[in-house]
């Protein structure tokens, strides 16, 4: 049997590969969900009632049900229910399915944060822009946007840190992310079997990465601290 110091580099290597997949899912989710969330928030704030009702219902369903179940539905439903396994069985397909589920789920959460941020800017700001003859897009980009960003950074950072940890849910459709990699040493992998510590050790990855994010968000908040209101 290998000693711990022999196991460690092997495990670390495997976990690094897994964490890369975790990171990829995290980044792809952000890239998709940040803009999609803004579109959804515009939908839920629409003055056209049928649209805002529809969007609000979708947001309720997505936020109201477990992400894990959404992952399972997105991945298995096309194949099992419709007889059309669009994702295939490989790692690429699993990643695509996970990305779709995560983007939709997080876009709904983000949309509510955006909505809160946009509605939180006093209406007087809009009117002040109007009487100064600004166009609607100037009012949004020059007056409201930075005030919205300042308002949403704290709740956004909260949500994004949760996303880092939520990526582990992709384990349920056997995406080979860091938890999957850690778990593999229980059953046996790379000549190591029956070891639980690699699974425990995966937490260190999340901790370090979230530590880094916390510092970055702190810096951003500080940068926006030059004004109040």
């Amino acid at each position, binding site marked *: 049997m290998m000693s711990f110091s022999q196991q460690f580099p092997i495990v670390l290597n495997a976990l690094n590969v897994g964490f890369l997949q975790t990171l990829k899912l995290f980044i792809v989710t952000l890239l998709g969900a940040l803009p999609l969330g803004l579109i959804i928030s515009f939908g839920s704030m629409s003055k056209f009632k049928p649209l805002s009702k529809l969007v609000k219902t979708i947001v309720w369903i997505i936020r109201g049900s477990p992400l894990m179940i959404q992952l399972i539905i997105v991945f298995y439903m096309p194949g099992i229910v419709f007889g059309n396994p669009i994702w295939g069985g490989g790692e690429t397909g699993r990643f695509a399915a996970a990305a779709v589920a995560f983007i939709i789920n997080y876009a709904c959460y983000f949309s509510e944060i955006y909505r809160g941020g946009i509605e939180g800017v006093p209406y007087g700001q809009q009117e002040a822009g109007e*009487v100064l003859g*600004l166009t609607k897009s100037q009012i949004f980009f*020059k007056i409201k946007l930075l005030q919205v960003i*300042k308002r949403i950074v704290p709740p956004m950072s909260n949500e994004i840190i949760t996303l880092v940890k939520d990526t582990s849910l992709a384990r349920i459709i056997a995406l080979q992310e860091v938890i999957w990699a850690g778990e593999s040493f229980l059953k046996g992998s790379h000549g190591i079997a029956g070891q639980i510590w690699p699974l425990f050790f995966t937490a260190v990855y999340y901790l370090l990465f979230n530590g880094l994010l916390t510092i970055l968000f702190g810096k951003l908040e500080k940068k926006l601290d*030059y*004004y109040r209101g």
Partner: protein
Amino acid sequence: MAILEIKNLHKRFGNNEVLKGIDLTLEKGNVLVIIGSSGGGKTTLLRCINFLEKPDKGTISVNGKTVFDSDDPSTTVYKNIRKNRLHFGLVFQQFNLFPHYSVLNNIMLAPKLALKAEMKEYKKQNGASAAKAEKARRLKAIEENAKNLLEQVGLSEKAAAYPFELSGGQQQRVAIARALALEPDILCFDEPTSALDPELVGEVLRVLKELAKSGKTMIVVTHEMRFAKEVADRVIFVNEGTIAEDGTPEQVFDNPQKERTKQFLQSIL
């Protein structure tokens, strides 16, 4: 010719008719003070003039040119409203400064954005290098004008400050400078001192008085009766959506014709 002419202006919110046919003309250089109890329609009238509310009926003309006509849909398109509303400036009760811009940038924002649009045209006609020089020249003029306005309201030393660093009275003076930067024909004030601590009211009223003296056409909704007596060329009392009393400060304050006006004046003096 009157600088402002309002005819038969109506506005209703749901079942509540707030303006019931306002007719009003204003001469250039005059200061008009609007008084009245809350809910009487005076703020709604001011907001209609500034296109923040869309009147249900009536016309508004500036210098003989119709800027709003309830029967002419083209005057209710945002693009046209945007041009026409620049005849007016509005100073809000709550100042509504942009918190993320410095005092100077609050004043320069709108002129700068307007310049940007103008320069696009200029570039097409005169070429890129000429446009660049012209833009630099005009930007400098905008900044100089903003600094002059700040001096006019007595806040030169606050150019780089942010609104949260200012007192309410200072914020309101910046808001006045911001409105003046676009050189409106008529400057409107919606209860400009109502959100201020009593000791800060004076500094804002002083700026208003100087503006009045300099010949600016102004419409001021206010509860400051001393100010109205001192500065107004004309006072109207708006009550239940109509102009109940209209005249010089002496006529309205000392010799009101309507019972309702007498009651109102008694209640506030």
